[in-house]
């Protein structure tokens, strides 16, 4: 059996990791801080819950949730690229509009999914901490992780990354970058909506406020994961022997894979798990639930500080040359 605190962190972390993948896609790959995700997470939960309570199948509900998320991303894209509204404001506006739309979809502020067949109904008999139950969550996240890693090695993935890095260069290659932004934003919000649909089924209800602060949760998780991976890389460099031939050698094919993107996706998955583990530990230690936002804010500040000042710390650790 897996301890309760670890089991809870794994379950929540794995499901929220899919939303953090969406945040990685916009924030890190497309260089677009998209605040739509707060609304599209709830949208996914609202669409799935409404479909499930009206006797539709689980997979239909999930597919519609993803389509609704893609549509939300499309609206943000249109506001920015066609009306010229800034990226941040476009996201805020869609997030605001989605609050009312989500209420319209659900008809009330909360829909219970108790005694309704969901994706996780088959595992209800198994108790908390059951490894098989946890494996299901792991497999769901792994499927999305593998899909996004595959996307990163395709030509479409290459152009998505290039558009976020230097749009002028991609336009200079004769490509209409509007299509790439549409795909990037749509896919990101579809992932977030699917995550919202899964979380609603897991917790047994969809709530109008379930997506509030998701962008900060996503950034916090991402930064925790990135800080951990960067820290491990620093320690490795600290103890590694210098290789004078390293720069003289032509790199092998394996080194040409998009490791930066793989690293960001890995950081998202690990970070989501660690974020919920840290939150669970804080609650266990007596932190008031109302102080969770404060704790998340401190986590993000410390994480960003470590990312920005980490190289300086490493230089001090190496000592004088």
């Amino acid at each position, binding site marked *: 059996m897996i301890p309760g605190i670890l089991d809870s962190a794994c379950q929540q972390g794995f499901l929220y990791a899919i939303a953090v993948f969406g945040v990685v896609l916009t924030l890190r790959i497309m260089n677009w801080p998209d605040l739509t995700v707060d609304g599209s997470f709830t949208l996914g939960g609202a669409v799935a819950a409404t479909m499930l309570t009206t006797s539709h199948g689980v997979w239909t509900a999930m597919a519609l949730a993803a389509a609704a998320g893609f549509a939300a991303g499309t609206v943000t894209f249109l506001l920015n690229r066609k009306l010229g509204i800034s990226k941040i404001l476009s996201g805020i506006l869609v997030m605001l509009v989605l609050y009312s739309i989500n209420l319209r979809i659900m008809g009330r502020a909360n829909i219970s999914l108790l005694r309704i067949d969901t994706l996780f109904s088959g595992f209800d008999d198994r108790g908390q901490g059951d490894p098989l139950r946890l494996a299901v969550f792991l497999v769901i996240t792994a499927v999305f992780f593998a899909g996004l890693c595959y996307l990163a090695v395709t030509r479409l993935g290459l152009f998505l990354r290039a558009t976020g890095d230097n749009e002028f260069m991609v336009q200079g290659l004769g490509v209409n970058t509007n299509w790439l932004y549409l795909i990037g934003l749509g896919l990101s919000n579809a992932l977030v909506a699917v995550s919202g649909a899964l979380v609603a089924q897991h917790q047994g209800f969809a709530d109008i406020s379930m997506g509030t602060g998701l962008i900060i949760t996503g950034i916090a998780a991402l930064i925790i994961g990135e800080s951990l991976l960067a820290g491990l890389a620093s320690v490795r460099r600290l103890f590694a022997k210098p290789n004078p031939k390293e720069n*003289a050698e032509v790199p092998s094919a394996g080194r040409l894979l998009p490791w930066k993107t793989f690293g960001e996706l890995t950081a998202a998955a690990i970070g989501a798990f660690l974020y919920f583990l840290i939150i669970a530990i804080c609650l266990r230690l007596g932190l008031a639930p109302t102080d969770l936002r404060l704790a998340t804010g401190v986590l993000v500040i410390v994480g960003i500080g470590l990312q920005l000042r980490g190289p300086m710390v490493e230089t001090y650790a190496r000592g004088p040359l």
Partner: protein
Amino acid sequence: MSGTAAIELRDVCVIYNQGTPDEVAALREVSLIVQKGETLIITGGNGSGKSTLLRAIAGTAPVKSGTILIEGTDVTRWPAHRRARLLGFIYQDPVLGTCPNMTVHENFRLVAGGHWWSLFPEPLRADMAQLTLVHSSGLPLGQKAASLMNSLSGGQRQGAALILALSSNRSILLMDEFTSSLDDQVRTSYLDIIAKELAHRQLTILGVMHDIDGIDVLNCRSIRLAAGIIQN
């Protein structure tokens, strides 16, 4: 005439900040023809409208009036990305011509053939034409293939941007003072690469520079621009 010219401008006017107190006429009824296979260098001082002329052709400057033809096709109303299918562009700042946070290999894969929407994995090898250009440039781009583009020096990045533009197989190349930040030795080697490419295939070049000293290797014609008007 327009059927044979690679680039033709007819009475092109470009005005920045039109209708405001900061209104500037950067180009005033400019007409010029660049024949296929020709190298034309436009010289002029700062603020003469040289870079604006290139941007008007590339579609990134607001053309108020006039007509722009590329290989006989009126492209005046085309968006920049559509014109880019006919034109290559080398910027003065290599940051604009490369993706700084992607590896050298990934930058080269971008200009290799294939549709951008392909969902097949990208090959982990360089294009043969690109390899030939990299080899002739003497740049250590093969060894740096897995390094980020922004880890290269300014000169190396400009060389990479030049090779990327040449290997994109466009028959028209616009060059915006691309040698201005290079030392004499590097500048000569990069001009040699262009001269070899000119000998190898029919390439039309329209470049802008402060002066044409030291570019004899390109065997070019030059005209002078001042205050948005062609002088000779």
